[in-house]
Every structure is written in structure tokens, then in C-alpha cells.
């Protein structure tokens, strides 16, 4: 009893000792935490260290201005413009695939689907995120590429139907809405029906024509920018969906309820209230998703065709392209590392480009997310 009491009321010395150990422990914890900081610094340092000799030897201009990539030529040429462009092109493709799909899915998850369905959809996203990139690459190379090559036209036609039909119907609806605004009350319904029917017929007709045109397209090689874009888009989906959903959720019930109370429908609430509030978060989600596409190696290495060219016309997704990551992975083997040749260092220069891009993108998305947090926190 006596002893316990003494323990409870600590003497100054004991207390100081305890505080000291706590401080030391805290320092130790901080040290371990700082490993991430150290790792980031080391990565920058090492990549820069090995990239620097390239810039010293060949200057900045060639890498970013020329499209002639002949690392093994005599003399070698290191124009990476086409490669950077290739990375950009497949990323653009991935954005086109993933952003509309991802944001729509995020809206469904945050506001539309009932709770139980939401719980079953979430694992789908987790699985999509968990599947290793090499499995995606294998799929792209072994299953998707031959399919594109043999049935490319019909696939494109099918895709055009899937994309254009719902959007077209939506457009028709909007047009009939606007066109029948000034008509007499009792004529509105039949007028609308007729107009909608006519427009739908036109839509279907033009879609038929489009799909007939697309069916005739012959894809000479299945390993091309389109293939990679679609697969990268699917890979970027989980990131976009989960981050965008988080920020849609973060907009809070109060906002939504306020809007509903004013008589807005769910769609109006979403478009006029929730999305403006969560907009920056959605942008951050897109940035993070896009970075996944930019940094992906295996899929592009296996299925992009690896031709260091700027397609002509530049948006020709059916031509093979080469990306930064695939170039690093593919060329490392032959780069004479011992002799410190430009061919070795240029790969580090490319890695540095990648690294800087990812840094900037990360900082921006981090900044956006934090600002949103603060703002929404303030709202509450």
C-alpha cells in the first residue's frame, strides 16, 4: 500500500527520468518515421546522380526536342520526344476511358446505390486494384491484342454503340425538352414523342453508319496505343473511384439535405451542390489515377508495340507507341553500365522525368485534397 502510494505520486527525479525516456523514445520513433523521408531523398539523389552525366555529355536540347531515338546507333541519338509523347498519348487514352467511367461509378457508389449493393461493389474495386500489373499486361498481350487484330473493327463498332447510345439518348432528351418549351400545354406530349422518335431514328441510323465504317477498320497490329489505353484506363479506375467517392462523401449529408429540402432532385443536388463542393477532390482523384497510368511499366512494355514514333496523325491510337517506363525496362539490359555511357545515363534521365512528373502531380493532388479538407471542415 505504502509503496504504491509512493509510485503514484512521482518524485521530481522519477518524473524527469520518465519524461526523458519518453523523449528518447519519441526521437527513436521519429527516426524510424523519417525513413520515408530518407528514402525519397535517396531516390532523388541516386536518380539525379546518374542522370546528370547525360545532361553534361549531351545537353538538354536533344532529349526534349528530337524524335530520333537510336541509342545503339553510330553515333547514337537520344531524342526522347516521341517516347514522352507516347507516354502522354496512352495516358490521354487512359483518361478518356477512366475519367467518365470512374466519376460516374463514384457518384453511383456515394449517392445512388443502396447500402447493400455498395458493399458488394466495393470488393470489385478492390480486386481491380489488387490484380498485379503483369496479369493485366499478360491479358493485353495474349488475349486482347489478338482480339483487336482479328476482330478490331467489330469491337470498335460495339464500343461506339455502348458509348454513343446512352449519351445520344440523353442528348435527344435534352433537345426535345428545349424545343418543346414554347409549345401549347396540351400539345407538348405528342410533340415530344414525335420529335424524340425522329431523333432516335436519326441517331440509330447514324450509329449504324458509324459502326459499319468502324467495322471496316483493319487494325494491322493489336499491340498499339488503343490496347494499352484501355487496359491502363481500367487499372486507373480503382484509384479514381475510391478517391473521388471519398471526396463526394466528404461533402457531407447536411449539404445534400439542404438541397433536397429546397426541392432539388438527386441529379440537381449532385451537379449543383455536391460536385462543386467536392470538385477539387475529384480533380485530385483524376491526377492520382492518371499517375498510375503514367508510371505503369509491364502493360505498356508488353502491349504497346514499342515503336518510338509520334503517330500520324498524332491521335492515331491504332499505331504502336513507346513509353518512358517501357524504354527504361527494355533498354537497361543493353546499356553499358560499366563504361558510364550516355546510353546508360539517358535511362536515368528518363527516370528523372518520370520522377519529377510524379512528384509534381503528387504535390498538387496532396495540396488540393488538403485544401478541400480544410474548406469542408470550415463548412461544418
Amino acid at each position, binding site marked *: 500500500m505504502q509503496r504504491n502510494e509512493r509510485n503514484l505520486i512521482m518524485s521530481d527525479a522519477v518524473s524527469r527520468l520518465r519524461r526523458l525516456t519518453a523523449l528518447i523514445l519519441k526521437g527513436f520513433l521519429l527516426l524510424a518515421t523519417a525513413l520515408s523521408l530518407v528514402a525519397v531523398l535517396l531516390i532523388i539523389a541516386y536518380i539525379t546522380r546518374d542522370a546528370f552525366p547525360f545532361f553534361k555529355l549531351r545537353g538538354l536540347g536533344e532529349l526534349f526536342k528530337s524524335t530520333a531515338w537510336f541509342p545503339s546507333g553510330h553515333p547514337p541519338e537520344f531524342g526522347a520526344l516521341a517516347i514522352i509523347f507516347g507516354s502522354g498519348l496512352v495516358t490521354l487514352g487512359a483518361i478518356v476511358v477512366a475519367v467518365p467511367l470512374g466519376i460516374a461509378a463514384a457518384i453511383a457508389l456515394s449517392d445512388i446505390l443502396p447500402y447493400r449493393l455498395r458493399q458488394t461493389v466495393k470488393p470489385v474495386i478492390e480486386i481491380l486494384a489488387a490484380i498485379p500489373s503483369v496479369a493485366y499486361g499478360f491479358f493485353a498481350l495474349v488475349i486482347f491484342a489478338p482480339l483487336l487484330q482479328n476482330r478490331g473493327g467489330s469491337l470498335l463498332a460495339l464500343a461506339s454503340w455502348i458509348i454513343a447510345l446512352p449519351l445520344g439518348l440523353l442528348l435527344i432528351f435534352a433537345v426535345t425538352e428545349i424545343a418543346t418549351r414554347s409549345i401549347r400545354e396540351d400539345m407538348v406530349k405528342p410533340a415530344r414523342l414525335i420529335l424524340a422518335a425522329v431523333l432516335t431514328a436519326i441517331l440509330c441510323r447514324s450509329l449504324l453508319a458509324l459502326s459499319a465504317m468502324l467495322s471496316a477498320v483493319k487494325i494491322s497490329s493489336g*499491340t498499339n496505343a488503343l490496347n494499352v489505353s484501355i487496359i491502363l484506363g481500367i487499372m486507373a479506375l480503382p484509384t479514381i473511384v475510391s478517391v473521388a467517392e471519398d471526396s463526394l462523401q466528404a461533402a457531407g449529408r447536411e449539404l445534400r439535405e439542404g438541397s433536397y429540402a429546397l426541392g432539388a432532385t438527386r441529379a440537381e443536388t449532385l451537379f449543383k451542390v455536391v460536385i462543386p463542393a467536392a470538385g477539387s477532390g475529384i480533380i485530385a482523384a483524376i491526377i492520382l489515377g492518371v499517375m498510375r497510368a503514367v508510371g505503369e511499366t509491364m502493360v505498356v512494355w508488353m502491349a504497346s508495340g514499342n*515503336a518510338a514514333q509520334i503517330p500520324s496523325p498524332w491521335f492515331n491510337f491504332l499505331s504502336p507507341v513507346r513509353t518512358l517506363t517501357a524504354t527504361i525496362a*527494355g533498354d537497361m*539490359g543493353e546499356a553499358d*553500365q*560499366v*563504361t558510364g555511357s550516355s546510353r546508360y545515363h539517358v535511362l536515368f534521365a528518363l527516370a528523372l522525368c518520370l520522377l519529377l512528373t510524379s512528384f509534381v502531380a503528387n504535390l498538387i493532388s496532396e495540396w488540393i485534397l488538403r485544401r478541400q479538407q480544410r474548406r469542408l471542415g470550415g463548412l461544418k
Partner: protein
Amino acid sequence: MKILYGFLIVSLMAGFLGAAEAGKITVDGSTTVGPIAKAFAEFYMKQHPGVNITVSESGSGNGAKSLINGSCQVATMSRIMKQNEYEAAVHSEVLPISFVVALDGIAMIVHPGNPIRELTMEQIKNVYIGKIKNWNQLGGPNVPIVIISRDTNSGTYETFETRVLKGEKIVKNCEYVGSSGAIRQRVQSTPAAIGYVGIGFIDSTVKALPVNNVPPSPETVKDGSYPIGRPLYMYTNDYPKMGSDLYLFVNLFLTKKGQEIIEETGFIPVTNY
């Protein structure tokens, strides 16, 4: 011949001695020599349990680098070491010894549906540098050519570049794929394609074209009449200690079994049993 038999007997005897000391051999380098190295490794490991041979196929340049910084014992290369690699080796007190383990020819392949019967070196070059863009310029149907090449990290590419293109730049819309097997696959599935592979990769699914009137075959490569042939190398640091696992491994190509393995993997042996 006798010398070789003698060599075989010596190496077999040495094999029994060497089997006692278990060890590991790290092989790194060319993807072209990969099939030989992998088959040798499996053959050797089966005969000498306890020896672990790992084979990486990361490119000839990587093989040279690994040999020089001591991280592998055997570098497989589909080209000869470059001057600066030799210099770097000497600088780090490594003495590269080369073994020519097999010969290889680079065959031009097209889709079997392609009516083209043969090509000249000049035509191949013009196709790959972009001067000839359509099969009708070569007497075929009016179809644009799909040009396929090995990735620039391969010795096959470098050989092709130096022997066929002679320093001119390959056309930019050329597609690059990772291996000879992948080229064959692209060509067999793409009617308008042209590609080049090691002659071991020729099979009935593609059509290998005679170059300058010489068909690609082990015989024509061996007698030098086929214009695009090359030796394949293994490099070690200094000549390996006689009787060691390393010694037996890199000299496997001189044995009868080694010759069979090389023939079976589709390359041309330098021995003749």
C-alpha cells in the same frame, strides 16, 4: 576429332572430380543465347545435383557489366565485347575470355501467305530504313509493310543493325518486340509483316526468305554463304580452373551432348560429331 574425344574424356573425368565441390554459377546476358544457357544449365544441374546455376536474360550489355563487376561468372553475349567494355574490364582487373559456343544466322521471315519468294540485302535494308513501304514495290500485292524488329536491347538487333542496315537508321514506325519468339508470333498473325529471327526460330508457321539467293539453313550459315550469320559467345573472367564446375559448364558446348543440345535449341554447333 580425336582431340575432341580426348577432351570429352578429360572433361568427363574432371566432372567426377569436380562433382564433389558443390557450388553456384550465375549466368547473365543475352536473350538470344538464353535458350542454350538455360538448356545447358538444366542439363548440368541434372548431372551434378547440388550445383545451382541461375540464368538471367537481361541483355548482352548487362551480361558484360555483370561479368566486369564480378556479379556473374558467365556472361552470355550475342555480340563481341565492345572496346570500352574491354577497357572497363581491364581497369577492374577482369580478363574476359571468350568462348564461341554456337553460330546463329538471322533469317528474314514473312507471313506464309506472302507471295514474295526472296529478298536481297539491299531490299531488306530499304524496307527497314523506310525507302520501301509497300509490298508491291517488291513484287507483292498492294499492302503496306508492317516492319517488326527485336528490341534495341538485344544483340540480335545490333547484329542486324551493323550487318544489314550498315549504320543507317531504322524507320520510326518500326515495332519492337522482346524476343525472337515474339517476332515469329507477330509475323504469323500479321499477313503484311516482315521480321527477323535467329534461324532456330524458323518453323512452318512462317516463311523464311532466301537472302541474296541463299536460303537460311545451318549448312549455309556454317559454310559462310548465308550473308547474315554471327557467332554467339560466353565470356568468363580468366580461364576457369580446370575441372571446376565453371570449366565444365562453359566447355559443355564442346561435348557431344552439348552439340545435341545446341542443335535441338535451333542453333548451329561449332563441333561436328
